[in-house]
């Protein structure tokens, strides 16, 4: 963790309460729960479900969740038959371009480390919570960061991710960010 906080005053968004779709199919008001529970229709995994898995991950720098900082959002998740693509947005828009022009090269490095770390948290959470048949790709939102290619490359490199998780200090920090990730699921 860097000693200097990279973005001390990020914009905090209010989180949206998802509407619970009341099943209007039922005539009787007290039927709703019953019909939902016991029906045999399969409910396939959708983008909201994946969003639920990752929305309550904490940002390593702030006491806010990724949802509150709009690092991740449901529309940024694409899901195919056996493939999931998650795109995430750094907290500072265009941080690679504007705020860091003229800054020391070390702080550019720090920023990309934080980004990679964030991606790593998302990957670990999905690794633990999605069926193995899914291949997960994690990307920084295109055009949002200077070193996005480097970050993407690291995040989607199996060996590198595995190696990173061998590092006990890093793993502990990941666990800390994931500590309340279960709260995201309604």
């Amino acid at each position, binding site marked *: 963790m860097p000693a200097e906080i990279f973005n001390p005053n990020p914009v905090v968004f209010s989180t949206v309460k998802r509407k619970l779709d009341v099943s*209007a199919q039922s005539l009787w*008001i007290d039927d709703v729960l019953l019909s939902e*529970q016991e029906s045999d229709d399969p409910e396939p995994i959708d983008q909201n479900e994946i969003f639920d898995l990752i929305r309550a991950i904490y940002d390593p720098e702030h006491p806010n969740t990724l949802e509150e900082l709009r690092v991740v959002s449901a529309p940024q998740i694409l899901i195919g038959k056996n493939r999931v693509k998650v795109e995430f947005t750094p907290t500072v828009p265009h941080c690679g371009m504007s705020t860091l022009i003229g800054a020391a090269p070390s702080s550019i490095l720090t920023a990309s480390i934080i980004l990679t770390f964030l991606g790593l948290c998302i990957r670990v959470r999905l690794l633990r919570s999605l069926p193995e048949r899914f291949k997960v790709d994690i990307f920084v939102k295109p055009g949002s960061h200077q070193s996005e290619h480097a970050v993407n490359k690291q995040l989607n490199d199996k060996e590198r991710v595995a190696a990173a998780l061998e590092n006990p200090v890093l793993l502990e920090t990941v666990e800390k960010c994931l500590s309340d990730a279960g709260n995201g699921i309604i």
Partner: protein
Amino acid sequence: MESAIRLVQTWVASEREQEIDEIVTGISNNHWTLLDVVKALGEYLTSEDASLLQKVRVLVTFLCGKLEDSETLKPSLTGLLRLASLSSFSPAEATSTIEALFQHVRMKSVVQSIRFIVFSILDTLMASHRQALQSMGKSFIQGYVSLAEGEKDPRNLMVAFAIARVILIDFDISNHAEAMFDIIFCYFPITFRPPPNDPYGISTDDLRLKLRACLSATPSFGPFAIPVFLEKLAAGSRATKTDTLQTMGVCIPVYGSAIARAYSRKLWNSLKLEIFQPVDVQMEEEALKTTKILVQTIYSEEEAAMESDDDIQGLARDACEECMQILKEPEKSQARPATKILCTFMTTTPSICRFTISQAVPHLVRLFHSPDELTTRPSILLLLSEFIVAARDAQAQEGSEADISLLPHKDNVMAVFIIGLKSTNSRGAALIGLKALVLIKGLLSDEELGFIVHNLNEVVQEEPSEFDETSEDIIDLLNTISRISARHVAEQTLPTLFSTLPDVAPKLEQDSLRIQVRRTLSMLQELCVQAELFEILVIRLTTKLDLLCFPSDQVSQLDGDNEPTAAYAHSMLKVLSECLSTKSKNKDTDLVKYIERLVPLIFNLFIASAFMEKERPMAANNPRLLTVGGEIINLVVRSRQASYASILSKALSTGDVSAISHGPQKFASNLHIFSTSSSAAERNILRLFSSAIIGFYKDVPLELGPLNDFVMKLLAWTLDKADTDIQTLSALELVSSLVNKRTDEELSSLLEDESSTPLRDEIQNTSNLKERRSLAIKAWAKISKALLVRKHPLAMSYAQRLFDLSGDEQIGWDAARSIGDLVVSDPVLSKANHADIKILYSQKYVNEILPKLIESANESTSATQRTSSLVALASLIRSISRAAYMHNIKLLVPLLLRGLDLEDPSVKVDVIETLLAVAEGDSPERSLVAEHSTTLVKAMLRNSNVQSTPSLKVRIAALRYLAVLPSIVRYNVLHPERATVLRELAVVLDDPKRAVRKAAVEARTNW
């Protein structure tokens, strides 16, 4: 020892030298100690005799002299401690003792127990000879400082801190403040942690509080202390920071406003850091509290002198301006803490409150109207609403006379909130703000309340699809307003809502209309609890129900099925029953009058429908409607009964319902529920009667004829005549309530002997159909329960019968389940229904039945009996408290594991729920299930897989158990299973149902 006492006694009587010599010889030869002698002298030393004073003096001088010698140090100190508490110990001795202590005792070179005695002597003298010590002046304080310096043992420190506080408060320390400061502040902050199994029972907090009492004992510490605080706050750990903040909160008011003002900048800069970049939420709160105290300390003195806001100078103004600077970007995360600080300022002194409001509120209002800030309006409103809430809290804190600082800004603020109300993303904040405005006493006029209601109505009407998220808050606000003035809601909101309810039920395919109706009804349900509004609700809904259930245009009703109509009527009845239930919980007094205004209408509706059923199907004959109708009647009659009880019971037994039913529908015939010629619809009406009687007090008169005969008739009717679930249920509930509440005399023949009742014969008779026998078991269980709850002597023999029957091939499981159900709390036999409930009624039953079940589950020769016992165990344990079965747990766990292999899904759920209940409060150190963990893991994995377990509930329960397992069993025990569990759960993550996947994610994360 005894001979010492004898010698002393002899000497006191004779005063001869001889005894003295003998005592001295005894001491020199170690027969007894000096301490023994002092103890033996005790009673004489405390007597008033002047010559004894002399002897105390001699002893003190002698003992003080012995302090020089390290060999005699400890006994001399012990002796002095004892002498010091005697009344004949004079101030002069106190002084000389202290001087000797200062002179001879080298604290650094003696052990803790000796130092403890020294501190105890000081403490004792401090209590009884304070003046003598005070007159020692400078030398005492200097002596004490060098004595106490460097003490480390927590036991000694507890005494030392107490002494120091007295010195700081009662002694002249003007020239020694720094010296005292040095020996006290070196302990701050306390980092001591008691060792495990601490024998002395001194906690970190004990020391903290004692030390804090010293730190806050004198204002003269101020200049030295504050820099220390600031340093500790900046560098410390979480615990240190909390301690420092709390200590500052206690000390700053003592140190006084001059010091606080002098250091205000530095203090503010440190506190600010804890608020803007808090370690966690508690720390932020602590820092805010301390800030509040700081501001109060600085400004409360000059409060009276404040004439205008311009008079506020210094910290409050600077901090306020600093925060206002941040509020220029209301959408940023720092705006929240800035607002919190300003809100904290509002709770300090009235003038600062006025000042803060005059700065912040107009600024936010201006910002809101600025065209550049359109996108940040929700954030602005959120901040503004926090200010209003703080203003409300400030008023609540100071009492109602406090002047309303918000008054000058009222119109602007309200306008902003009303605008915010109109757009979806800022509505939530606007509602919070408006609610706070409404709650500030004396702020809004009646017309303004009406104006708010008017605007809320527009929201409700205009955007029915969009107001989902905030509808609760809207209702909450309307409720808040209706408590202040119901008129606006009654005149504006209710007509709007009623007008959206159609007269004819939405058709099956009209989903959107149905959703809208439901939303309206749920709003009415929340809104109409208040007396005035509920009255309107009753009139409007009963009229509507009548129109709906008895349409004038009969053709339209005949051509289709009447289910939509029934469902619509049901939802309206449900609104009434939910409102009544809330009112009953609130103990509203207007509930009573609905015995005349609502109950007869309900009877009228249902009885008329039952009679008309012969001609055409009627919506109101649906059992669900009758159930809700019953709920309504039950809720109303619980309140007042005696005369009504006899009227109603008479109507049931004679069949003449004219006395209990009034309303628009007219019908001639009498209602004979129990007659052989009655129709099913007529028999269903029993639901209403039964619901009413269940709610009566137990001593009201019932005109049902001899009660024995009535109950027998009812049971026979249940078995022979009743042909719908609602009929049997109503009849059995009625039986259970009567058996529970009425006296033994009334029920004599029923209760005389359980072995000879006709009901028992029905159960035993194996030539009966299975259904008839299960129904009889059900009735039996109801009666058993009614008796058990009132702790009737017959209860156990009734329950025993159920146990005996659990081996039966045909109905064994029914009997087994009811064994457990007996202890489940029953809505019919509740306090609210005035049932006869004795405390701890289940205990004796559980104590008796549990060992029997365990025994028969293990040892019974019949396989059916063994399985039934498992079923009974699962249903029983689930319903009783942990303490009741803990002593048997070693025997139970293997049985429960066997239960997991049973096929029936509901039994499996029972078993897993039981295991979950067992797991609660379990810990890895003393795990109850550790030895079975492998079996448990295997069984749960099997039950969580969709292929092997089709039941959703079982899968979820099994996964929940897997999720708790890692927290109740030690890791090294579970480690061998880990890989298997993770692999198997990875498969479950692909379950077709979302709820199962959710449970699987949690379980897998925990592993």
